[in-house]
């Protein structure tokens, strides 16, 4: 862990006279007390990789149970805990911290800032994560088991649950606090610490999408905290927010939850859009097409995300006017999303492309994310959604946008920047094997789920009827294959962190032109203490 980023930096002192890495504690104290954005970024990334493996193991349990009809591996209650924790851990433990890890490392480097604006708060927002993750994992071992009501935590089912649910609620509170602090930090850094000449409309697009993401987080994380707090008081203090017998309404929770939950979807995907917008121009050796329209499209998506939440609730029995409004608003999201996809294609058009691992993941992202976008459009059509809602069609849809979308973009980003972070090139052959293996096994896993959903298989069931057996077996085989493929990524990253491999030059990608590539590799412990001048 500790070798990333700085240990090799000693010999580069003459490039950066102010590099002063001797002044931090060593060993565990260094990591506990660090306020350095690179250290904190590194911790975020390793943390999210760890949680990705934990959540992935749960996915393997789910697919093992669903390999054949009948109950073989786990009992239904534990199965429900697995689906619940898999969702919570992947969303809050793997994807979101990974995005913050990228932000911590890259935003100061890309805008020419010496560090994040609030360095101590940065430390605190990271160190809130491990206790929250521990609460989630420990909840598996308390009486009554972990939360088993789905990651959406719908009452009244979650009011019935045991104390595992309370641990989950506290974990969500802590994770939310961490996200809000991270967002405040990112917004302040971007707005105040840009180098001279780095106007907002000159920032790399990754900084723009994160700026928008951070505003989304600040707007909606308190809403989630409110929802789970109401759940907590319903459970223990006799309130009846979600209980009709006391004048409440179970559907109220869904409205509040999805008012958080839909922007959350874009919180997950916007940083990925940013990474893709750095990678595609670099490997096409051509500037990003339609930079301004990319910024407007990202902002447009963010604004629309606040008025579409009830499309997750089309079957709750809304009034006709509500159904129509939320259907039309949801369909509209296709427009700015389409603009982004077209811009990426136009960036590649008449470029001079090469296909190193980051570019492969970016193209995989583009192809599969768009497929997930199309199934999203299908689901936005309310009468079709009635058939597909809460089926495997939805499971397929959101894994196409979250795994082949966000996760692939993060893989691409990790391969793209690991030379800068560690000073070591990753193994290109291994990277390509990781890409192709992931791409194929991902589709073997999730493509059949479209069929299962259309044919009528509900999600979150531990056992299923005979006509779903074929595709489930194929999906399970794909899932084990996909899970095993990720070990290649873990191995690659550990090798880079240990400095095993070719030494990376300052700018390994000849088409990359953002500020971080003007620094030596690995980036010194302190960078841009004198702001660079951006012309």
């Amino acid at each position, binding site marked *: 862990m500790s070798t990333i980023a700085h240990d090799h930096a000693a010999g580069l002192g003459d490039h950066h006279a102010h590099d002063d890495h001797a002044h931090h504690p060593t060993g565990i104290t260094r990591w506990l007390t660090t306020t350095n954005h690179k250290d904190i970024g590194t911790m975020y990334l390793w943390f999210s990789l760890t949680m990705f493996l934990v959540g992935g193991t749960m996915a393997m349990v789910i697919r093992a149970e669903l390999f054949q009809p009948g109950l073989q591996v786990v009992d239904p209650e534990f199965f429900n805990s697995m689906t619940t924790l898999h969702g919570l851990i992947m969303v809050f433990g793997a994807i979101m911290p990974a995005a913050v890890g990228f932000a911590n490392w890259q935003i100061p480097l890309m805008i020419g800032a010496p560090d994040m604006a609030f360095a101590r708060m940065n430390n605190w927002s990271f160190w809130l994560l491990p206790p929250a993750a521990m609460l989630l994992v420990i909840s598996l071992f308390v009486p009554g088991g972990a939360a088993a009501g789905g990651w959406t935590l719908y009452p009244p089912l979650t009011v019935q649950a045991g104390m595992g649910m309370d641990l989950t609620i506290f974990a969500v509170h802590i994770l939310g606090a961490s996200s809000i602090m991270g967002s405040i930090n990112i917004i302040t850094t971007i707005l105040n610490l840009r180098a001279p000449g780095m106007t907002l409309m000159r920032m790399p697009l990754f900084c723009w999408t994160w700026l928008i993401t951070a505003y989304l987080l600040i707007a909606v994380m308190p809403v989630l905290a409110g929802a789970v707090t109401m759940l907590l008081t319903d459970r223990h203090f006799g309130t009846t927010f979600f209980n009709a017998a006391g004048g409440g309404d179970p559907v109220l929770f869904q409205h509040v939850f999805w008012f958080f939950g839909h922007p959350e979807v874009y919180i997950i995907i916007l940083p990925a859009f940013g990474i893709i917008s750095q990678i595609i121009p670099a490997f096409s050796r051509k500037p990003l097409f339609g930079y301004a329209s990319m910024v407007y499209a990202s902002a447009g998506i963010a604004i629309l995300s606040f008025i579409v939440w009830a499309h997750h609730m089309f079957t709750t029995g809304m009034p006709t006017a509500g159904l129509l409004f939320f259907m039309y608003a949801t369909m509209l999201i296709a427009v700015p999303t389409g603009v982004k996809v077209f811009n990426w294609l136009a960036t590649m058009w008449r470029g001079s492309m090469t296909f190193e691992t980051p570019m492969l993941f970016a193209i995989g992202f583009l192809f599969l994310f768009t497929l997930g976008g199309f199934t999203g459009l299908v689901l936005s059509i309310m009468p079709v959604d009635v058939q597909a809602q809460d089926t495997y069609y939805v499971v397929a849809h959101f894994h196409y946008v979250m795994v082949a979308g966000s996760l692939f973009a993060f893989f691409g980003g990790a391969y793209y920047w690991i030379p800068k972070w560690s000073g070591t090139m990753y193994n290109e052959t291994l990277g390509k094997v990781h890409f192709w293996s992931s791409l194929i096994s991902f589709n073997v896993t999730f493509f059949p789920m479209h069929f299962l959903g259309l044919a009528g298989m*509900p999600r979150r069931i531990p056992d299923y009827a005979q006509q779903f057996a074929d595709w489930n077996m194929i999906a399970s085989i794909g899932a084990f294959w996909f899970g095993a493929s990720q070990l290649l990524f873990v191995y690659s990253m550990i090798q880079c962190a240990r400095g095993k491999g070719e030494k990376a030059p300052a700018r390994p990608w000849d088409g990359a032109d953002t500020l971080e590539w003007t620094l030596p590799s690995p980036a010194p412990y302190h960078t841009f203490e004198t702001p660079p001048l951006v012309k």
Partner: protein
Amino acid sequence: MNRTSFMARPRLLSSLLAAALGVSGPALAIAEWNLQPPVTPIARQMYDLHYFIFWICVVIFVAVFGVMFYSLFRHRKSQGRQSAHFHENTLVEIIWTVIPFLILLFMAFPATKTILAMKDTSAPGLTIKVTGNQWSWSYDYLQEGFGFYSNLSTPLAQIENRAPKGEHYLLEVDNPLVVPVDTKVRVLITAGDVLHAWWVPAFGVKQDAIPGFVRDTWFKAEKTGVYRGQCAELCGKGHGFMPIVVEVKSQEDFAKWVEEQKAKTVVAGADPNKVWDLKDLVVTGERVYAANCAACHQPNGKGVPGTFPALDGSKIVRGPKEAQISIVLHGKPGTAMPSWAQLSDADIAAVITYTRNALGNKTGEAVQPAEIKAARKSG
């Protein structure tokens, strides 16, 4: 277990074959990868809408990624391409904003028409109240004045892989909902405990069941037959085990069935004072237990530690019977134990007798239907 995968194999091959040939689902009638054949006007509109949107998406997808793959093959450095340097074109950007918008309008029009039709629940020929419970459905024929529970009838042995799985594994019930053909059936949906969702794919009906609220929807089945669906909202550990089976009968058969049901209701209430043998009560009680209690308290009565209490050795089951009757009739507030007052006096008497003389308990006491009746009266 092995038997299952054998059965699955021919189907697997046929579906793969169909996929390889790119033949559309309906042509080969492979139900496993397509929406189920619709039998109501609304379900047919949903089916058509899905394919309408689907084909538009396919055309756009092929066009957009045709361009991408052309670019991937032609515009690569290894072919000595020099990159161009354009990075803006206002006209192109306006065009690819406006055209998708127009396509969306084209999609929204038929979808809106279907939504308006779906929401029109007026003038039904029959109204049925559907209640979701953990974990079974119950149906009440409001005008006809009778109702019943509909429980999963797949034997536990099949679920636990001790017996080969039947054709309708997990999609079969003891008492299906029965409706007449060509009649607009309005369904009032609610729940007794947590959220459920009543979903019959062939009817195009999926409506969440919300405790404390009644929602309505409707369907008009145009073909007699048996149609199967499942609960579509996570409702706890039995979520995968509460299927919906609807039998659509001809008008005459339906009328006959309603008469039978009414007669049964009368018989069931006929002789509440009959004194039963302990043995008869235990036999009946075992059936009632399997249908209503085993989901939580487990078939062996051991419960689930920390969540559902064991009946084996329970102080209440081994103690005075009045206390147990009261819990079964009224439920236990603050826990998952609901009231079972909707069961008949005979069923409640039988199941209590069963728990007191099986599952590791042996009190030798019989509880008679008359005692239940008396307990109901005293509140």
